[in-house]
């Protein structure tokens, strides 16, 4: 792990809304194949941090490097090219409601990557089969379950061949029974070496899979470290308190 190259580096990311600072000097770096999991109370800045990484939220301060190259987000072309390389999964899926599952995956391949309709279709079908939705490609989002929707959104992101995936509480909007079908897909990504940052409250899942847990509260990264240490023996008292509470609530396994 130590000699793998760094894929993504974030430095001093800061975001304010009016006088409220929701993210303060957050820095993070991600090596190839690494999975870092953001934990912490709601409103702590996890979502803002993830959305600052691909500039869906424009940070007031902070720099981002992908593969050693700094991204200047005011240069539109550069920004759009960068976003193609950073897949994003949202808590509430954000599938395009007027398009079928197939079209959801296909559209960016055609309109952003400029693939032909046929190539885009082949790739989209492939990705949808990979997340177990080969039989549902003609369905519209409103005809799919939450778990299926989230899997379509993962297929949509993967079709762009991202170097990094950002997952913003991908299972928080799901019924308990549907959580595992999405987690299985994420585990698969992990096994295949996808580099990822994910925020979640599934602490059992986090502790088994993550290389590192990052604890965020009030916009500050309070502590980061290997899951075992974070969960049982965190340096910061607040981290310990949060981890023990959430372990109680969600259990140790998944």
């Amino acid at each position, binding site marked *: 792990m130590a000699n793998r190259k760094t894929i993504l580096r974030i430095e001093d990311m800061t975001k304010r809304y009016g006088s409220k600072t929701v993210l303060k000097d957050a820095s993070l770096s991600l090596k190839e194949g690494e999975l870092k999991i953001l934990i912490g109370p709601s409103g702590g800045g996890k979502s803002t941090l993830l*959305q600052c990484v691909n500039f869906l939220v424009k940070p007031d301060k902070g720099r981002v490097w992908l593969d050693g190259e700094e991204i200047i987000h005011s240069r539109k072309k550069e920004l759009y090219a960068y976003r193609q390389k950073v897949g994003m999964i949202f808590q509430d899926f954000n599938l395009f409601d007027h398009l079928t599952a197939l079209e959801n995956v296909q559209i960016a391949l055609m309109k952003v990557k400029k693939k032909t309709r046929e190539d885009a279709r082949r790739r989209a079908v492939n990705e949808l089969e990979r997340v177990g939705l080969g039989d549902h490609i003609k369905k519209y989002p409103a005809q799919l379950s939450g778990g299926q929707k989230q899997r379509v959104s993962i297929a949509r992101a993967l079709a762009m061949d991202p170097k990094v995936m950002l997952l913003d509480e991908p299972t928080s909007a799901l019924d308990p029974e549907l959580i595992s079908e999405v987690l299985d897909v994420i585990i698969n990504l992990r096994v295949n070496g996808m580099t990822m940052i994910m925020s979640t409250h599934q602490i059992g899942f986090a502790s088994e899979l993550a290389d590192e847990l990052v604890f965020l509260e009030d916009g500050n990264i309070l502590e980061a470290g290997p899951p075992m240490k974070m969960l049982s023996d965190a340096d910061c008292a607040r981290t310990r308190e949060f981890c023990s509470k959430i372990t109680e609530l969600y259990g140790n396994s998944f």
Partner: protein
Amino acid sequence: MIESLTVLYGALPYLLRGTLVTIVLVAGAMCLGLVVGINLAVGQVYGKRWLRNLIGIYIWFFRGVPLLVLLFLFYFGLFSLLGINLSAFTVAIIVLGLITAAYQSQIFRGAILSLPEGQLKAARALGMSDRKAIVLIILPQALRLSIPGWSNEYSIVLKDSAVAYALGVTEMMARAHFVASRTYEHLPLYFSAGLIFLILTYLGTKGLRVLEEKLRIPGYSR
């Protein structure tokens, strides 16, 4: 009674040619209003402050000044001042189009704002420019939601089109008036004119209803 019917029967082809003028007038104005209105709405939602202010003034102006005043202003005033020689028919289409654009823009704006903001975010996250995201993701959904309001706007423009008569456009109402004042058969002629308007309203709103049903996204309950 028989005399009235004979007059009406004789005038019918003349009235129907006027109906065709009305249809082209309304179709032209609605299309112009659609194109301009979509642009106004997008500008008002996503544009910079100066653009939003400019659009605000446009809407204020075209919603605030009466149709008849605008028709005279453009036909006798603006266009002759600029030395542009347009027929009364063309000016009527332009003026009706610019007015309905102001109203239509608010239908579209409301629809755009009703979409979850995640739609735009997801599009951006895939590397789409804002223009692509709006054209491919936002508008197809917003326009679907706009059909009921648009259908309402159609019936208003249809009725407003009768005012084009004041510029000398020989649309249906103008023709009814000519015949009525020559034959003194006021009641049957204006009754027929009203009836034709009712039929056009029915056909238009019905057609839009069918379109709405055709474009409905599967899986949504009514």
